[in-house]
């Protein structure tokens, strides 16, 4: 199947280096301490953060840092066929672990010993790149909750089909069986914090594909910055400052 036409257009009309449209909203879940909705094209996820609060399970308490827990689940209606077991299956457990490790590396956990931070991410609509959208949403939710972080974590995926590196794969391109590289990136510190890949790639092409994903992360970081600054201004405006 042809994923990149001879004119250089992908199946949804994008250029190979073009990302899908992103949209973010802070504060969607009023009960949570911090929350955010993040959309990348048709992929839509919602993240809610609770904490830092008292550890619920005493045996898991860590004496010198905060305990970070993360749960990833997909809504039954998120994919084309109604899903039978949206959480607890292998893929969800793996992605929960990946998101938890990525965010834990970025949260300054030593400032909140013996407390617990819960991150819940729910995929409302899945069209490829759910992992990245979840990490971006979790970053916004953590910042909304005022949890001290080293830097914003942004994430983007890229692939390689028809001998072209493609940025931000959607579901059809992802299920083509080609490589799918997901990168988590700290923009100000300029460090890669998550790197995952399915399938195989020659090492020299891998460099290009990873660099492309990092560029995507930087673009998302700019957008996330703007959203957060806008949100801070809104909060102050409502308080009359």
């Amino acid at each position, binding site marked *: 199947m042809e994923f990149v036409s001879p004119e250089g257009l992908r199946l949804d009309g994008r250029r190979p280096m073009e990302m899908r449209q992103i949209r973010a909203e802070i504060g969607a879940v009023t009960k949570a301490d*911090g929350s955010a909705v993040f959309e990348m094209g048709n992929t839509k996820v919602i993240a809610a953060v609770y904490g830092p*609060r008292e550890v619920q399970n005493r045996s898991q308490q860590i004496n010198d840092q905060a305990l970070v827990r993360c749960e990833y689940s997909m809504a039954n209606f998120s994919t084309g066929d109604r899903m039978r077991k949206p959480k607890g299956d292998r893929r969800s457990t793996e992605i929960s672990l990946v998101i938890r490790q990525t965010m834990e590396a970025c949260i300054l956990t030593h400032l909140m010993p013996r407390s617990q931070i819960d991150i819940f991410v729910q995929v409302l609509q899945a069209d490829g790149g759910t992992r990245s959208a979840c990490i971006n949403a979790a970053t916004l939710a953590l910042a909304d909750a005022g949890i001290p972080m080293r830097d914003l974590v942004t994430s983007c995926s890229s692939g390689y089909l028809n001998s072209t590196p493609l940025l931000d794969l959607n579901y059809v391109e992802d299920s083509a069986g080609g490589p799918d590289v997901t990168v988590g990136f700290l923009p100000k*510190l300029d460090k890669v914090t998550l790197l995952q890949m399915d399938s195989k790639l020659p090492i020299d092409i891998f460099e290009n594909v990873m660099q492309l994903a990092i560029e995507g992360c930087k673009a998302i970081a700019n957008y996330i910055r703007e959203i957060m600054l806008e949100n801070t201004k809104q909060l102050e405006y409502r308080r009359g400052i």
Partner: protein
Amino acid sequence: MENKPSSSPTSFVDQSVVPGDVVLDLSNMTNQTLKLGGGLRQDCDAISVMKAGKLRFSNPNKYWVESSQKRYVPHAGDSVLGIVVDSKADNFLVDIKGPGLAFLPVLAFEGGTRRNIPRFEIGTLLYVRVVKANPGMNPELSCTDASGKAAEFGQLKDGYMFESSTGLSRMLLSSPTCPVLDALGKKLSFETAVGLNGRVWVFILFLRPSYL
């Protein structure tokens, strides 16, 4: 796009900042002592932001990030509203919307002895002062001021409590008096207690049949 760290901090003061922003570069400032408040941390030679908010500066050398959240970070000296969760032999366990439950010693009341320990049920609302707030330890509270007098601390009976953000609480407590409280005071007589942890208690003594 990189924001260049500036040695002249005026470019970031009173501006909104997000986690990761480098607001000061110490390599150009020698022999100066800076005081860093909440929301800032030092990373070798760069001062970077931990929380999203507005960067503030106060003479001569204090920097901090002012942000408003739903949860509270306990500091010594703050007056907060707590809800009793449990009572033990020596302490009451009080929830102050912080990372851990706070302890209120049973003797921390004016004229408190072992004979007249107050009995607070679970769910009682208290206006208390934070005495100690060290990271990693449960905060310690007291129902007296620093000199040992009761000074309005203690149980808040009747009335209505609602939750707010920490920023709103600070604004209600700012001086000169917040315009909202002024305007309400002209129409009604009421009693209010504002906790820095994002809880506000209001008690109206006489409610006239009018809309607020």
